[in-house]
């Protein structure tokens, strides 16, 4: 009596589980349990010295850089607003002899290879100014004239003929997207020899002379930031300006000591005069923790 009923239950249960297992096998088989490979971010590790040498800007640097990908220039919208409505048409028609493109160096077909000459905003603005004056003087006649004297057809410049973009938008290397005016170096690019060693020598001297109170409860209040101006021979040019504000005798003692140290260490001969532009005004942070860190 009992057994047949239990057998029915067992059969139903086993069938249910088998069906569930089959469903699970089919539905999960499509999705393997393997994680996707992670994206690799390549980084270079360079030392501080290498970095300071990298930022050195030289006017006559060789332009043998690796070709950079051409990108759309997104910044610097002002010249485009001024020039584009007038200078648009003539420049497109004479595209085989486009003033901005072949002017710097005609043999090179692609202007994107030469970042130093390209993004000179003043020269460009002057050029556009000339173009605008000329086009305003003779808006219709001028565009036709340049074509007969320069009939040379360069197959490499078909792309320029087909380029229907606004001529004020010029292809430019990616580095020029930075807000700073592009050059081979950065604006503040220091000479490689300014380096960390000169600053470090100055710091070391100041730290030697600085004599902050010892055994203070929380030394964070002794951090003093001072801006100084220096003359070319390494002396203070005017009184130091304390940038940190603080209260209490501890801070005041540390601040006065720091100012005293700045005066005492005065001719800072370790700073070479050739890089005077960089160190004529510097900010120095006196941090007692640096003394213990070494």
């Amino acid at each position: 009596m009992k057994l047949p009923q239990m057998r029915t239950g067992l059969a139903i249960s086993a069938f249910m589980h088998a069906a569930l297992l089959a469903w699970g096998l089919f539905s999960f088989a499509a999705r393997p349990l393997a994680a996707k490979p992670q994206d690799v971010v390549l980084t270079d590790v360079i030392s501080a010295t290498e970095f300071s040498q990298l930022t050195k800007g030289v006017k006559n640097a060789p332009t043998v850089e690796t070709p950079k990908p051409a990108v759309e220039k997104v910044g610097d919208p002002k010249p485009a607003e001024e020039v584009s409505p007038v200078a648009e048409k003539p420049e497109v028609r004479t595209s085989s002899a486009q003033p901005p493109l072949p002017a710097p160096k005609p043999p090179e077909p692609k202007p994107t290879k030469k970042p130093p000459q390209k993004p000179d905003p003043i020269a460009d603005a002057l050029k556009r100014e000339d173009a605008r004056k000329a086009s305003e003087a003779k808006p219709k006649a001028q565009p036709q004239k340049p074509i007969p004297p320069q009939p040379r057809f360069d197959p490499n410049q078909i792309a320029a003929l087909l380029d229907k973009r606004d001529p004020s938008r010029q292809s430019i290397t990616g580095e020029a997207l930075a807000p700073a005016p592009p050059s081979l170096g950065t604006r503040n690019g220091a000479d490689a020899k300014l380096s960390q060693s000169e600053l470090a020598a100055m710091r070391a001297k100041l730290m030697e002379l600085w004599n902050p109170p010892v055994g203070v409860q929380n030394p964070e209040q002794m951090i003093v930031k001072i801006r100084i101006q220096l003359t070319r021979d390494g002396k203070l040019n005017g009184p130091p300006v304390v940038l940190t504000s603080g209260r209490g005798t501890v801070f005041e003692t540390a601040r006065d000591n720091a100012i005293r140290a700045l005066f005492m260490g005065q001719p800072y001969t370790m700073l070479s005069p050739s890089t005077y532009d960089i160190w004529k005004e510097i900010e120095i942070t006196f941090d007692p923790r640096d003394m213990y860190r070494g």
Partner: protein
Amino acid sequence: MEVAPVTTNPFFSLFVQAHWVVNWAVMLGLGLASVWVWAIVIDKFMLYARTRRAMDAFEQAFWSGQSLEELYRSLSERPVHSMAALFVAAMREWKRSFENPSRSVAGLQARIEKVMDVTIAREIERLERRLLVLATVGSAGPFVGLFGTVWGIMTSFQSIAVSKNTSLAVVAPGIAEALFATAIGLVAAIPATIFYNKFISDVNRQAQRLEGFADEFSAILSRQIDERA
């Protein structure tokens, strides 16, 4: 850099190599437990439905004014359960006492109640049979699954140490497989616990019903005994 072997103990390495055996044993055992639990659940569902229907039918027949002798005769021909069994047991004791030449009516009331108590206990035992399996699976299933998971994660960490690679691609599959043991344990244990609670309350309700009928029938028989004595 010196590379030391990770598992130096031969006993331990034996276990590590056998990790699949352990995991599969855990998973297979839990799967069988789930099958068995559901078999019991289905069986009990049918049994309780049948018992309830039988009780309803019997109560209808009992209170229909039909002669109890006739009812007894029709029921005692075949083995019966629950309320009918209660009735048959009481009637059998009654008949034995009165058909006996030396009518032992003195302790009849006590004897009938004792017989009905025994029958109720037997019926409840029949209803409750195998419910303990549900309780056991419901409480021990998650632990067994957890054991499989812990074992799987242990071995998976061993393999990580061997491959010396901590990327997610190496760690994740082993841990996912190990967690599957816990999933099976929960899948087996959750229905077991739910249905165990439900069935226990069902059994209690039916036992109450049997007790009520036993009291009523005992009162009827007691009146009969007093009238005949």
